[in-house]
């Protein structure tokens, strides 16, 4: 995107630019965090289409409430909270729908035609196992092990206590291992 030197600036500087009327500057933040949060949303919701919805809602909500971002240096962390909340809301709203697995179609990086059939099958098995976890366990597991956040960071994002988070991650790991026994060796 053609944001010039703006793309080099820290989050706080871009937030300040947006709040003083430079709406286009928000595009830098969208570009900066889009990919980082897509993977989490896609795994949480089990669908790239739902992840797209969640991220779009999160970015627009963040823009609407940008003035309430108390520490613009931590815009990414603040946005993560909004993404997590949007995922929770969408997941709850769509809980009655048939749980869809992420399709390994051309929209998924790294899961295109270059992957052999057994890799595709493994991918689907892992996604299915992930979808069988309780949402709170899946959320904690993804944030801790896939997104590699510390428990302190996860606690800040989710508002949950560290002990509870550790327990969820432990249970999620054990459950995944059981579900994938014989599939992943």
């Amino acid at each position, binding site marked *: *995107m053609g944001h010039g030197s703006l793309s080099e600036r820290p989050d706080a500087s871009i937030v300040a630019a947006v709040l003083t*009327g430079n*709406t*286009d500057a*928000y*595009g830098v933040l*969208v*570009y900066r965090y*889009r*990919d980082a949060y*897509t*993977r989490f949303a*896609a*795994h949480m919701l089990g669908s*790239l289409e739902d*992840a*797209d919805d969640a*991220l*779009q809602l999160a*970015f*627009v909500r963040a*823009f*609407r409430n940008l003035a309430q971002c108390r520490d613009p240096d931590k815009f990414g962390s603040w946005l993560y909270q909004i993404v997590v909340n949007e995922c929770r809301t969408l997941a709850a709203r769509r809980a009655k729908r048939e749980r869809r697995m992420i399709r390994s179609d051309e*929209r*998924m*990086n*790294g*899961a295109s035609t270059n992957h052999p059939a057994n890799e595709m099958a*493994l*991918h689907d098995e*892992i996604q299915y*196992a*992930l979808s069988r976890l309780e949402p709170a366990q899946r959320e904690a597991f*993804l944030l*801790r*092990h*896939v997104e590699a956040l510390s428990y302190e960071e996860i606690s800040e994002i989710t508002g949950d206590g560290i002990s509870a988070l*550790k327990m969820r*991650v*432990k249970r999620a*790991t054990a459950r*995944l*291992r059981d579900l*994938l026994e014989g599939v*992943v*060796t």
Partner: protein
Amino acid sequence: MMDWNDEPDRASVEKIINHLRTPVSLDETFDLRVMSAVHGVALAQVDAQHSVSEATEENAAPWWRKKYTVRLSAWSGLALAASIFGIMLIGAKIISRPAAAPVVRTAGIQRPAGLKTVNFILVDESARQVWLVGDFNGWSKKQIPLERAANGRAWTVSIPLSQGRHEYAFIVADENGERWVADPLTPAVEDDFGTTSSIVRVEAAS
């Protein structure tokens, strides 16, 4: 140190995690769709602020500048209209009318002082050409073409507009011909003929 490192089957857990760490990307139009929505929110916020300031000005105005609604019966309305007409006839004879100021029509976008650049975005991947029309250019169709974004799905143009409320719409040309499209992201207004246009309100340039 990861939590499962002490477990005998950590290799299988690591394999699961590595698989889940494969990058996932969204549609390449994602940024444009978000920014379209964001611009819509920004315009709506400007619109809301303007409404609030108008209401504040209205409340602060002296009694003779405030707007009042007077309810009249049919007969009293006719009597009032007749009275006003009579006063106007008398007044026309007494007061000499000044010469009317010449009307000047300006082609293209008006460019008075205090212009502000406004971005217009339309996501329409089937379009072959898109133009912006509005009261700012006399609704003239082929004056303001939008440019196709690099991904080929969105169309954008930035133009300077004067402070105030403007009505506009897009003309989209595709394989089925040309059609009138109101901006889905901004407030709409319908004219007497049922055609829907959009509203943009431009704040004073800072």
